[in-house]
């Protein structure tokens, strides 16, 4: 079945979490079965209270070839981080 079944990515929201976090992937015949398998595979120990499943093919990811233009330009711009700036004397906590 696995060879024929599409791959789904699984996201969980924990009891105190605001966002769904990616936890893994699994094979299933459709979204309904993917939700059930996700339930059995990823929340057996109460890890979550909400599940999203998304077919892996529907996720568009950045590519290795994009590294130079996507990420490298950030490396030499420390002024984009708050830690780059010296805080005025009056500010104790930031």
């Amino acid at each position: 079945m696995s060879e024929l079944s599409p791959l789904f990515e699984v996201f969980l929201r924990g009891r105190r979490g605001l966002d769904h976090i990616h936890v893994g992937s699994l094979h299933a015949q459709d979204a309904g079965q993917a939700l059930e398998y996700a339930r059995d595979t990823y929340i057996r120990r109460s890890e979550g209270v909400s599940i999203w499943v998304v077919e892996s093919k529907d996720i568009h990811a950045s590519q290795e070839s994009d590294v130079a233009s996507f990420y490298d330009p950030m490396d030499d711009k420390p002024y984009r981080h708050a830690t780059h700036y010296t805080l005025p004397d009056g500010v104790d906590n930031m």
Partner: protein
Amino acid sequence: MGDKKLDDQIAEYALRLGDDALVFGQRLCEWCADAPTLEEDIAISNVGLDYLGRARMALQYAGKTLGRTEDELAFLRDSGEFRNLLLVELPRGDFAFSMVRQYLLDEFELLFFTQLCGSKDDTLGAIAAKTVKEVRYHQRRSANWMQRLGLGTQESQARTQAAIDQLWGYMPELFEMDELETSLLQAGIAVDRLELHSKWLNTVTAQLASANLQIPQIDWQVVGGRKGVHTEHLGHMLGEMQFLQRAYPGLQW
């Protein structure tokens, strides 16, 4: 309280429910590491562990009156002392067989444990309340599998129909009321199994029909589990399940 005869009856009733769950849980866990896919492997074992949890609750409760621990009841009784339904002790068969058995049982248990929630015995009622939630999920899973298998390929449909035909004669035992259960029913403690039959049959017939599967017309049925008269399969299963405690009595881990 203090009604010895009633306590004994309740213990026997709990023993029946506990044995059903224990034996079926063991059969389901036989799929562990052997299911068609990794996902199904985890899912089916998960269901098996739900049954194990249920078995523990029921056997602990029965054991209080019987003066035996849950482990003694599970591992030190021979097949003639087990009180489970014959249905649950049958070998797991192929995947279709296991799923058909699961589905037929799930629909029954949904009705049965919903009723048992209202038992005048608080412990049985509490076990039922916990169990109903689990069964609702089991039924959702197995009903989906009936659709997938029945409407899947020619082979999956044929295997699923064959499983229904093989299992149908084990269904009457689910609805059998003997002296013990009738007496407990009158005390407001047990469930009226007979009363569940028509609703179960309607649900199952409709669900299976929508999956291109039919209820067979058969003229055989087998019963006996409640009296300790079992198929030859139970002894073999116990041989594996009880091996450690038999070979190394009192072993702990």
